[in-house]
Structure formats: C-alpha cells, structure tokens
C-alpha cells in the first residue's frame, strides 16, 4: 500500500480538505481531490501529535504554520509510523523520557533530603550567632505571641503569668532572686526575662531573644530550689547557644526547601509540617546535650547543686522541652543524666534559696 486517504488542514485556514497521501521515496506527498500537490513532507520532519486512539495525527516539526494531516486507516497509519522517525505510536520514546524524569527527580529528592538533614542545620548554626540582637528580640516577640496562644488554655480569670497577685508576690521575689543569681553567674550579653506560667506540665522552654518560661508543674514537682535552678540553667544554655533563633531559621529554611521548590501537590503543606517536626526533633538532641553541659557548668559556677538538674531530669523523664517525649528508660536520658553527674562539682553546703524563700516559690501560682 503506497497511497491512502487522509484529511488535511493547511494551517492557514480552517478549511478541511479530503486528500490522497502517497508514500514518496523521501517523504509524504499530499494531493487534493483534483490531483494538485498540496504539500510534501520529508519523513524526518513528520511528528505524531496528540489525538484520539482511532486517528493518527501528523504535523511538521518546527513549522510555524500548524499544518495537520489525519489518517484513520490503521494499516496505512502503521506504514507511515514505520517510515517517519518522530512518529511514536507505541509511546516507547515517551516512556524512556519519563523514566529519565523519574530517575532525576528521585536524585533531586535525595539531594533535597541531604540538604535538609545536614545543610539547613549547618547554615542555621552559622547564621544564628550573626543575627543582631534587635532582630533576635523581634523574632522572640513573634514566637512569644504564637507560643502564648498555644499554651494559654486556662479559663478567663487568673493571669497566665504567675506571681502578679498579692499572695504570689513573695514567690515572685524568690523566683527573681534565683534568676538573678543564675544570670549574674552566666553573664550573658543579652537581658534574659524569666516567668512562671500556669501550665500543669513539668516543663520549661527558652524562646529566641532570651525569654524563658517555667511551667508551674515543674516547680510543683521539684524537691529543692536547686532542681528548679538546674532546669533554668539548662534553659539559659539554650539562650546562650541561641538555640531558639536556630530553630526559627531551620524552620524557615525547611519550609522554603520543601514548600517552595516542590510546589504544593495535594496536601503538600501538611507534608511540610510533618517533615519539619521530624527533622527538628532530631536537631534538638545535640542542642539538649550542649544545654545540659552549659547548665551543669553554670550551676557549678553559681554555687548551686548541679546534680539537681540530673535528679530533676530523672523525675520528668528527660523531657526538658514541651513536645520532647523521650522515655526515662531510653538510653539517651540515662546518658544525659550520667553526663551531668560527671561534670557536676561537689555538693555545696548552701541551697540556692533558703527554706522560707523555697516555700514562697512553691506558692508562686497559688493565687
């Protein structure tokens, strides 16, 4: 079969022409009903185009005009397919191209994960110390607002912060004294503000810019003032190491990597959030160890009992930050406790607060 029927559009007008198509030596010859030659298409310039399964639709590669030739005879279509280089009815070439795309995007994924795992923390690590104090304070304020809305779930009534009512004032004074002792020993370049908040969990947290929250649950669970001081010293370690700012930079970097570059296919936003929380919990392990070391050294220097941090850690199951739920029997917490006890100096004679002050601190959220 060297000739067949087709439908031809010349790309200039919408006129539909019934044509005869002949297989020439070097290309297709398209002739009108009257035998007039309409077009000659060299085989290497013919390309197959998207069409329903029953039609072979051909065009000319690189042609500005959208000339189209449609063949409905399956046998004749197969013959043209065999001769024309760029007609790909079986989809083989397309499949190959797609496999290449999949290969490259898997590689891109791997590189992205590597950057997220190693690159982003490394960048945050180096960038955080360079942040000017003003910007860090701003960051802290922004984070503070979010944290407050997250944590502040009490009924309207008593304030979120403890120590503002008359019956709580002595407790506040004791707490301030404890903070003052630790701050003097720490000698940080930026002012630190510590407050006790009405939350029942035994926890504490440090925000960027030197804001420290101690939860009332922690003070209730503590046996001595030194245990509270130990946890505050640990948080001061986070402030000194600028871990809060690092976390914000990391979160920003990760959401940029996953959110922007990948775009948002269905539910991508949730994927980003989950990925971030997984990655960030892994960052914080080293930060915790460093804050422990700092806290222990600070307690030694401030004349407190550094082992109190270890005993407090044992009580609260290693979770010094909200959301960090590492069980006590986990080797990691045991290793932390052992490391603190290794670094701790001999127990001093005097506790950080006297009995009266400690009793007042215990009642800081009583109002």
């Amino acid at each position, binding site marked *: 079969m060297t000739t067949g029927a087709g439908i031809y559009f*010349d*790309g200039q007008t919408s006129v539909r022409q019934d044509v005869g198509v002949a297989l020439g030596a070097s290309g297709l010859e398209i002739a009108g009903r009257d035998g007039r030659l309409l077009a000659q298409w060299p085989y290497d310039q013919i390309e197959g185009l998207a069409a329903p399964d029953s039609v072979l639709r051909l065009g000319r590669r690189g042609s500005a005009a*959208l000339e*189209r030739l449609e063949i409905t005879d399956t046998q004749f279509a197969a013959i043209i397919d065999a001769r024309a280089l760029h007609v790909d009815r079986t989809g083989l070439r397309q499949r190959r191209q797609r496999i290449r795309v999949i290969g490259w*995007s898997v590689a891109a994924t791997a590189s992205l994960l590597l950057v997220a795992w190693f690159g982003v923390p490394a960048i945050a690590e180096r960038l955080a110390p360079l942040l000017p104090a003003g910007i860090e304070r701003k960051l802290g304020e922004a984070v503070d607002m979010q944290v407050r809305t997250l944590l502040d779930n009490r009924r309207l009534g008593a304030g979120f912060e403890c120590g503002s009512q008359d019956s709580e004032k002595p407790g506040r004074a004791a707490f301030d004294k404890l903070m003052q002792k630790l701050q003097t020993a720490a000698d940080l370049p930026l002012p630190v503000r510590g407050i006790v908040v009405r939350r029942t969990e035994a926890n504490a947290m440090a925000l960027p810019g030197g804001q420290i929250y101690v939860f009332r649950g922690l003070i209730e669970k503590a046996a001595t003032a030194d245990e509270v001081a130990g946890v505050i010293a640990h948080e001061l370690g986070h402030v000194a190491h600028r871990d809060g700012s690092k976390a914000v930079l990391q979160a920003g970097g990760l959401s940029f990597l996953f959110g922007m570059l*990948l775009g*948002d296919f269905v*539910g991508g936003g949730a994927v980003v959030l*989950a990925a971030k*929380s997984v990655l960030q919990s892994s960052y914080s392990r080293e930060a915790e160890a460093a804050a422990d070391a700092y806290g222990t050294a600070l307690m030694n220097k401030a004349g407190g009992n550094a082992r109190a941090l270890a005993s407090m850690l044992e009580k609260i199951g290693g979770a010094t930050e909200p959301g960090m739920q590492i069980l006590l029997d986990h080797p990691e917490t045991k290793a932390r406790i052992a490391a603190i006890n290794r670094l701790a100096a001999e127990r001093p004679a005097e506790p950080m607060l006297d009995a009266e002050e400690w009793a007042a601190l215990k009642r800081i959220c009583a109002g």
Partner: protein
Amino acid sequence: MRMTSLEASATAAHGAIRFLGTRRAYWRLLVRGALLLIVTLGIYRFWLATDVRRFLWANTEVAGETLEYTGTPFELLIGFLMAITILVPVYAGFFLGALGLGTIGQLSGVIAFAALAVLGQYAVYRARRYRLTRTIYRGLRFHQGGSASAYALRAVLWWLATALTLGLAYPFQLASLERYKMRNTYYGDIAGHFAGSGLRLLWRGLPMWLMVFAPLALTVGAFVMAVDWKALGDALGAGSDDVMSRIEGGNPQLAGVIVFAMLMAGTAVTLAALLYPAFQALVLRWWSSGLSFGELSVTSTLRMRHVYGAYVRFLWYGLLFCIAMAVLGAVGLVAVGLLAGSGPTGAAGEIAATGLLLIGYVIMALGFSTIYRATVLLSLWQLGMESLQLSGLSALDRVKAGGTPSSALGEGLADALNVGGY
C-alpha cells in the same frame, strides 16, 4: 452512569460535540500519575497535567474534528522555575518585612495577602492564555489578548464586592470577568464573545442562596432577640477578668441561643454541600450558553441530575477507597507493632511512626484527588461538552490563522500559588 453517557451522546449527535474517551483509560492515566507523583515528590505533576489535557482535548470532538493540546511538560516545568524566580524574592521580602519595625511590620501580613491575591488572579489569566494558545483545532490556534494585570485588578475588586455582599455579587462577577476573558479570546481570526447576564444567574441562583443563608439569618435574629444588650454592655464595661461568666449570668437564655446557632450553622453547611452540585450545574449551563465565536453560538442542555450522578459516584468510590485504606492501615499497624516489639524504640520508633502517618496521609490525599478527578471533573467535562448545541457551524469553514504561543509563566505562578485549573 452508562445510561447517562448514552443519553448525553444521543443529544450530542445533533449538538455536534462528542466525547470519545473511555473512563478506563482516564483512570489508568490518573492512577499511574498519582503513583509517580509520590515517587517523584510531586515533580511528575507537569507530566500528569499534560497527559490529562492531551487526553481531554484529543477526545473532545467538535463537528467531526477533535481538539489538540500541544503543550509539553517541559514548558510547564520552565514556567514553574520562572515563577519561583519571581516568588522567592517576594517571599523573602515579606519575611523580612514581618520582622521590620512599626506599622510596616504589622501590616506585612495584610500586604502579602493582597499582593498574592492579585498575583494569583494575574496567574489565572496568563495560565488561560497558555492553555488557549496550546489548543489547536482544524490546524488553527486559539489565542488570548488583553492584559493580565488589568484582569487581576478587576478580579480582585470583584472578589471584594462578592465577599462584602455575602455572595450576591458573584453572578455579576462571573459575567463581568467572563466578558473580559471572552472578548479577548480568539479562534484564529474570529473573536469570542460572552453574552451571559449576571442578573439572570442571580435570579436563578437566589433560591439556593436563600436556603443557605436563611438559617444564618435566623441565628442572627435569635441573638438580637435573646441577648440582654444592657447586661452585656455592663459585663464588658466592668472590665473584670471573668467576662464570660458575667455575660452568662446576665443572659440566662444565651446557652439556648448558642445551641440553636450551632444547629442552624450545621443546617446551612449541610444545605450548602447538598446544593453545591446543583449550583455547579446551574453555573456551567449559564456559562456555556453565553459563549460564542463570531456566528457560532452555543446553548447548553445540561441536566442537574447528571451532575448529582457524578458526585454520587465520587462518594461511592471514596467509600470503597476508605474501606481499602482502613484494612491496609490495620495490617500496617499490626506489622509495625510486631517490629516495634523487637526493634528500636523511643526516638527512632517515633520517627518511624511519624513517617508512616505521613505516607498514609499522602496516600489518602492523593487517592481522593484522583477519585475526584476521575469522577466529578471528568463527568463535568464530558457532560458540559456533550450537552452543548452548536449553531452557525458554517462559521468554522472560513477562519484564518492567528496568534502565537505564549510562555508558561502563568501556569507556573498558578501552580506555585495553588490557583490552577485543569
């Protein structure tokens, strides 16, 4: 549903538009695409979008000739990269602005929202241009003139009006924006035109609007009646910490009204969900009946029950999918439980659990979007097309070529900003 397509095909014989594709082929295309989306973390979406359009266009036959989509995945990929180039500095600017001092810092969220809203509409218009210039029919290109910025401004102002009028301006918004789009749309050298009347759509849609908003209005009325405004003012004026209990004390009926409000809100949401397919059918029929190209004009005979049929199939497949996922999830949990008994615990286990949850979430989201595309979206395309009656077809015989292909920047922006269409 087979019944439906037969019915619709029968009307198509003289309506001159047929859909040739099979559901099976479309399902295959979408399921394969969803799997590859997971493997490639979403990069495959450019290929999937192109496949979907090729399929829909190529299988839509108008007056004996099928449409052709000539866009390529690489164009979409490049468009996306261009969009990133524009958006990254914009995002970085907003991030820095949020840290900035004073009013600029506080307003940066609002400014960012407004800027992205305008940019989103800009993207919508340019993406439409890309799709039109990649649509070939009888060897001629569709194309679109007009200014994307002018359109974006118009669209954002209209959205504002629609929001302020609780949706009553929406028909006029649709009509106005569609007029702008269509008078800048060309097939070869013939210009498009949109004649749909916003007032007519408002008139037809008003019963639905009333059904959704009546319960809400009742709620507001009940509040006005029940609340003792003086007591409320006193409670707020007292400035005490315990405002809530004072408000409750001053208004014994308030609890009842709140229960009533919740019931009414539930009613409104349910009605809105139930009426949505009818609304969609109404808008689709109104919209397509307003379209014309030169002497070629269109009327639509779309039936509401067919659209409801599509949603019923969506719910049915969704239910089957949920059951399958529940079974798989149970098996997975048991397997994880067995592994966790012997394997690492604590942090590693936590990460593994989060990872599994993540995968489960992605599969659920992709599964539902696939089912939605294969049922509702495909049916809307097919029903929308096959219900059209064309008149003045002879206008198609003497069209001359015009227009050039445009860049895919708009598609990229629409993709990055999540405002994409088909």
